[in-house]
């Protein structure tokens, strides 16, 4: 499987996903008008990851802003990772939030609610 790198855009985050097991990052702001299209390569990467022999992933999310469509895509992404874990993969999510931004912390808590994957809230 291939590494996925997308540079930060005006309304989209920097994406860096490894070519296999490792650490992945989504960092910046995420409010594209068509989030479902923008997230497609990310979902494709997760699909490939689920088929790969080495399924260990630490996904770091450090988004200061995201729109509601992107929040749906993030939840879909976490659910795909949850499926991967159910298939034997080792995945965890680290949700980074600015400690003076309670909305961001609450968003992380909401997205983690009901998920069966390790989900850490990390203040910075």
């Amino acid at each position, binding site marked *: 499987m291939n590494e996925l790198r997308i540079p930060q855009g005006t309304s989209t985050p920097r994406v860096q996903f490894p070519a296999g097991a490792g650490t992945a990052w989504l960092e910046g*702001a995420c409010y594209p008008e068509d989030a479902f299209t923008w997230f497609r390569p990310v979902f494709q990467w997760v699909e490939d990851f689920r088929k790969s022999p080495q399924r260990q992933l630490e996904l770091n999310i450090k988004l200061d802003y995201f*729109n509601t469509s992107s929040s749906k895509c993030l*939840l879909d992404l976490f659910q795909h990772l949850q499926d991967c874990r159910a298939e034997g993969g080792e995945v965890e999510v680290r949700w980074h939030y600015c400690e003076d931004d309670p909305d961001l912390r609450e968003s992380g808590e*909401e997205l983690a609610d009901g998920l069966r994957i390790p989900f850490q809230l990390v203040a910075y």
Partner: protein
Amino acid sequence: MSKETRLLEWEGEGLSCEAATLILAGLKDQIERDGHPRRLFRIAVEMVQNVRLHSIGPAQILILQHTGSYTVRTENLSDPDAAIRLLEHANWINAMPEEEVTAAIQKRRQAHLPPGSRGAGIGLLEIRRLSASNWACKVIPGPDQYRLVLSATLTHNSAL
């Protein structure tokens, strides 16, 4: 006497995706530079993207800072059917007890969307939540097109 400052004013026809992105990027920089609440940007994103979804002609976006509060207001011409659907959706949201709003957002976030969906259908719910219910959706009927007006206010008591 209360003071009012215009943080953003845009008026025009056919708000393009590129223009909306630039307007929001400029607003984000301004909010971070001048220390306005981040929540203001979160509301503005949903409202500007709502204009993009529903506008079929001239539109206006206005963000005002008052003493102790902020107002985000958008107005745009809309197809009558789309405007009525949005108003019904807003009425459904407003009829909901405050404590159920977050659960409704969660439920919609988990829902399967049909292919080709342009949004997650959560934007107005989020505007209500972020503004602590200080928001309004109005439709002003015209002969062929309707005017759709959305406004949300952030106050020190509720959301700042």
